[in-house]
């Protein structure tokens, strides 16, 4: 069996206005992966997803899904894909249960099979008691969950999520993360684009960073994160920090009398920093990463590309 869920070869897209959105990108996403496709706005993420799902016509290149070339057998290739788009796109005058069962019908799943499946999905995503309501009456978080349910009704092997938690509150995001993890554990390959880099860092096994229509990075999350040589921490202290503080080679800056920002090399140990401070009678009350590791690397990569 082919272990690649999605293979993209030399994919290019030039829009009718002349804008070149993709400059020949290549990707190979393995079955069972939880893959992050990240990039700033306008980088080419949504264009790539649009082409995979045939909402956008490619200019050149090849795409195969589980070994099926989308140009040769798009019907079969599309049965493997579920899409959660970036923007809410329901018929707002249709009841929720209809939205799900209709989507099943478009994938050839008969109503008598789709109805119990829809019930199971809506219960899992905590929407069952809303099944007869029109989608326009749902909150933003519920609408996001409904999009996930709709994308899963035909049991796709490859789920593509284009910013699925955009605008959702923390509770909805956490619920969604848990559910996506379960799905991935059960064998569904997931491609995620998101602006919440913390989300990608927590969920994804592999990552590609795209900018200006080119893939800048394509590796495992672990390999990518290991490129970070320094991490910045914010330390909150109980005691006042003296202006003439010396921290044995750590770069730092005072934010206020009780807050300090310190850069710690990935090779050194944060315990030694806390120890140095305690020797100087400064007790650390709490600490946090200034930015996520992925965010730090992402910004460096994208900034470098911009230069």
């Amino acid at each position, binding site marked *: 069996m082919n272990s690649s869920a999605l293979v993209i070869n030399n994919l290019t897209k030039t*829009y*009718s206005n002349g804008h070149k959105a993709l400059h020949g990108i290549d990707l190979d996403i393995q079955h069972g992966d939880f893959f992050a496709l990240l990039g700033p706005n306008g980088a080419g993420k949504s264009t790539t997803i*649009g082409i995979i*799902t*045939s*909402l*956008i*016509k490619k200019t050149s290149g090849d795409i195969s899904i589980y070994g099926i070339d989308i140009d040769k057998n*798009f*019907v*079969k*290739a*599309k*049965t493997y*894909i579920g*899409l959660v*788009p970036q*923007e809410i*796109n*329901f*018929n*707002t*005058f*249709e009841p929720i249960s*209809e939205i799900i069962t*209709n*989507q099943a*019908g*478009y*994938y*050839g*799943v*008969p*109503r008598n099979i789709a109805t119990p499946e829809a019930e199971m999905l809506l219960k899992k995503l905590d929407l069952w008691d809303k099944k007869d309501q029109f989608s326009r009456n749902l909150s933003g978080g519920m609408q996001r969950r409904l999009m996930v349910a*709709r994308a899963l009704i035909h049991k796709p092997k490859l789920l593509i999520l284009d910013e699925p938690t955009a605008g959702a509150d923390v509770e909805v995001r956490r619920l969604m993360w848990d559910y996506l993890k379960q799905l991935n554990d059960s064998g569904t390959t997931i491609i995620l684009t998101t602006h919440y880099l913390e989300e990608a860092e927590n969920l994804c096994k592999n990552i590609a960073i795209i900018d200006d229509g080119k893939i800048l990075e394509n590796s495992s999350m672990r390999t990518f994160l290991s490129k970070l040589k320094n991490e910045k921490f914010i330390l909150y202290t109980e005691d006042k920090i003296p202006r003439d503080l010396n921290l044995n080679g750590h770069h730092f800056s005072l934010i206020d009398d009780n807050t300090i920002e310190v850069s710690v090399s990935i090779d050194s140990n944060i315990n030694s920093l806390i120890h140095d401070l305690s020797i100087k009678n400064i007790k650390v009350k709490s600490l946090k990463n200034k930015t996520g590791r992925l965010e730090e690397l992402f910004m460096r990569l994208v900034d470098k590309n911009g230069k």
Partner: protein
Amino acid sequence: MENNRNIQITAYKTIVRKEVLRFSRIWKQTLIPPIITNILYFIIFGNLIGERIGQIEAYNYTDFIFPGLLLMSVITHSYTNTVSSLYISKYHRYIEELLVSPIQNYTILAGFITGGVIRGLSVGIVVILAAQFFVTFTVHNILLMLIIITLSSTLFAMCGFLNGLFANDWDDINIIPTFIMTPLTYLGGIFFSISMLPGVWQDLALLNPILYLINALRFSMLGITDVSIMFSLFIILLFNAALVSFCLYFLNAGKGLRT
């Protein structure tokens, strides 16, 4: 192949069901207005004005205009159903539900067209029921009548589909009804026989495709016509074939749907 066929059949049934539910849910907007409009036509044109006109080809005026009025209601609603359904689904972007799924373009077209035809036929039935109080309902050839109504409905459902593909805003969906359908329908012999027109106008009237639809339906109901029935059927089939080709061509090209 078998699997593809099953997918397309299930998808087709789903689109049709969705389309029928869509206009059924808003029956007050879709099924009641044509009844009111036609009753007004029967009262004003049939009874008030018709009595002064007298008989046309042995039929009183209300009976003479009824096939044209029936056809106008059917084609208008077939057209409206597909253009509004397609355009609204583009506007709210839920057309993407169809576009990302493994549905072939011919299935999408067939689903929308069937929805439009069912609405057209539903309107036809309610108009016929309402007409019972005003006209002497006669049928010369029931099979021909059903064929003409269905083919006319299909034709205009496809016009609506094409308009929906090309429409970029709400104003665009009224272009065909305002500038093409309404003038051609009114000039197509609903209210008159073209034999009543002076020479050159008779020749010009023959260029109007809707004239053939109205005359074919009038023949199937009353047994009278201004033009050859076989030629009318040929014109109707020709336009249907041409519109199927246009619709599929533009769907395959992704016009208005895929960038």
